């Protein structure tokens, strides 16, 4: 393995570039993905390397461009469509949920939609309520979409390569705070794929199982390392793809630890992470639980602007730490 430390923006760009080199039918379209290099710099120099035909700048028209991606996907291409902020998938939900997600099933398998929709999500940039959402429940609740939430550059690269290969529509949700920071692990060279639908056990422990997604994986990892020093031993599981969701490692872990903490950035209410809880609460591992399942998630509020408010709105490391400590201490 190499020891290349990339940021997530670099890893995503590398995955796209590999796919571009492998297959002529892969192309990228979106607002300002061309000479501007993408609002978050993800496409970067791809416009210069691959030209305006494969790195296609679009007008500001999310419904139209996702629809165009769907139509191109039906016709032999493999579009990657970038939506500048995941909040603006709201404009494109018809093409995402009513068209892309349903076409294969509804048409009796006659057609399929090999499309990847990449979009940055999450808070922390001071961009307020319309630019900071985590809309996982919108996508994860729609049968026919695969939904990926990478938590680090190496996974992002491998998962994106698999997503581009996939014959089905994949929603790829990149946390914008992860774009500029390198991961803990090096990013392998070459076209190493990570299959969709396989959870990753990030670390193992015996007192508590934490399931976290996206940026919360990093925060939970820090907590796990810190609490290890205090003798609290934590298993951390990152589902990586929230649809399809691989619960097996969670069941197995909870059977050992008896305690479960689930963490996401988006609002608690009707949040994606409830799916983890529902599957757990309905499973045969249920009897292993010695504590109520603890859910730590964003407040049920739109993301506020001012930094001190924005921070309060989503789980911070200290919140995870105290939640973890509390469960282990209170339930023995």
């Amino acid at each position, binding site marked *: 393995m190499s020891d290349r430390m990339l940021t997530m923006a670099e890893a995503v760009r590398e995955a796209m570039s590999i796919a571009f080199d492998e297959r002529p*039918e892969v*192309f990228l379209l979106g607002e300002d993905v061309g000479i501007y290099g993408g609002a978050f710099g993800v496409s970067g120099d791809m416009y210069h390397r691959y030209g305006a*035909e494969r790195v296609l700048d*679009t*007008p500001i*028209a999310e*419904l*139209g*461009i*996702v*629809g*165009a*991606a*769907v*139509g*191109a*996907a*039906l*016709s*032999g*291409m493999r*579009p990657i469509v970038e939506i500048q902020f995941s909040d603006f998938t709201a*404009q494109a939900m*018809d*093409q995402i949920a*009513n*068209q892309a997600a349903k*076409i*294969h*099933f*509804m*048409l*009796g*398998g*006659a*057609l*399929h939609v090999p499309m990847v929709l990449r979009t940055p999500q999450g808070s922390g940039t001071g961009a307020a309520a319309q630019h900071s959402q985590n809309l996982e429940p919108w996508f994860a609740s729609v*049968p*026919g979409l*695969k939904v990926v939430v990478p938590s680090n550059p190496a996974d992002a690269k491998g998962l994106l390569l698999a997503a581009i*290969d*996939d*014959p*089905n529509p994949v929603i790829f949700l990149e946390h914008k705070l992860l774009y500029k920071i390198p991961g803990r692990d090096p990013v392998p060279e070459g076209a190493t794929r990570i299959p*969709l639908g396989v959870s990753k056990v990030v670390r193992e422990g015996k007192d508590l199982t934490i399931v976290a997604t996206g940026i919360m994986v990093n925060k939970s990892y820090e907590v796990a390392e810190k609490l290890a020093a205090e003798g609290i031993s934590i298993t951390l599981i990152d589902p990586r793809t929230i649809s399809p969701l691989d619960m097996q490692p969670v069941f197995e872990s909870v059977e050992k630890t008896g305690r479960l903490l689930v963490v996401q950035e988006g609002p608690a209410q009707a949040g994606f992470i409830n799916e983890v809880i529902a599957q757990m609460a309905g499973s045969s591992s249920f009897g292993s639980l010695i504590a109520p399942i603890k859910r730590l998630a964003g407040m049920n509020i739109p993301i506020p602007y001012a930094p001190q408010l924005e921070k309060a709105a989503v789980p911070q490391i200290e919140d995870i730490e105290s939640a973890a400590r509390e469960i282990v201490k209170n339930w023995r």
Partner: protein
Amino acid sequence: MGHPLSSPEHARHALLYMWRIRKFEEAVEDLFGRGMMHGTMHLSIGQEAAPTGMCMALTLQDQITSTHRGHGHCIAKGADLTRMIAELLGKKIGYCGGRGGSMHIADVETGNLGANGVVGGGIPIAAGAALASKMMKRGTVAVSFFGDGAMNEGAFHEAANLAAIWKLPMILFCENNGYGMSSSTAKAFAIDDLADRGKGYGIPGVNVDGNDVVAVYEVAQAAVDRAKAGEGPTLIIAETYRWKGHSRSDKNLYRTKEEIEEWRTKDPIPKFIARAIEAKLLTQEQCDAIQNDAIEAIKAAVNESVKAEAAEPSGLLDAVFKAVTA
């Protein structure tokens, strides 16, 4: 295909396909009436010339997207009648294996990317198909059929602009039947001529008598030529009328009997028969035989479909995603 008046075969094709659509719709109405069909239905009786004329300007490789009122587009593009009826009856051999029904029939072999239950939903998809054609240098055109009502959806706007700026080989084909459900174009638009919508995008807008299959073919062929020459999209507004209600629940409160009657006199089928006979391409007898062929074809399709095996719920979960092959 070619011009409906360019040979007896072409004339026969135009007439046969209009009859097929008409007789298909009548059969559907009948099956619904007898409680053999489920759901709702959107009939295009009276509108047969528009899809027939448009599709005669297309090859099998050219693509279309269609609408909730899509039987005509599907038939005109060449779909198999049995698989269509079978779909409506929820049979395994139906185009969607019983999963889609009338609003989701697609036929990949004839380039039909599918009917669509969402008003305007197919327009951006057709733009994407046209984009793929351009990128892959396939030399094909993508036609989006839609109604007058769909033109007020954002989907129309965004797709039209994409087609214009990228000079896509696309045709925006509006079947203007005067109403979007109960909304007349007079109420839903503040312009008299829907073709003016093209001006905002730099797309030529053409009006045509949508009940004249010859006229429709001619504007369609011009638009196809333009698209294939790399000159970009055309907006075609074909004026037509639906004789039946919007769907089963429609009580026709928003329009007059007189209006319906008046449009019935503009029936596209006798209009074309007269032209074809006048041009000495077909005789009255041949025309009658063609009508009969259509009737027989639909009957056969219904009979076969009725007998076919019903779709089964098993396997539905596995049908959501196309399997990933390594």
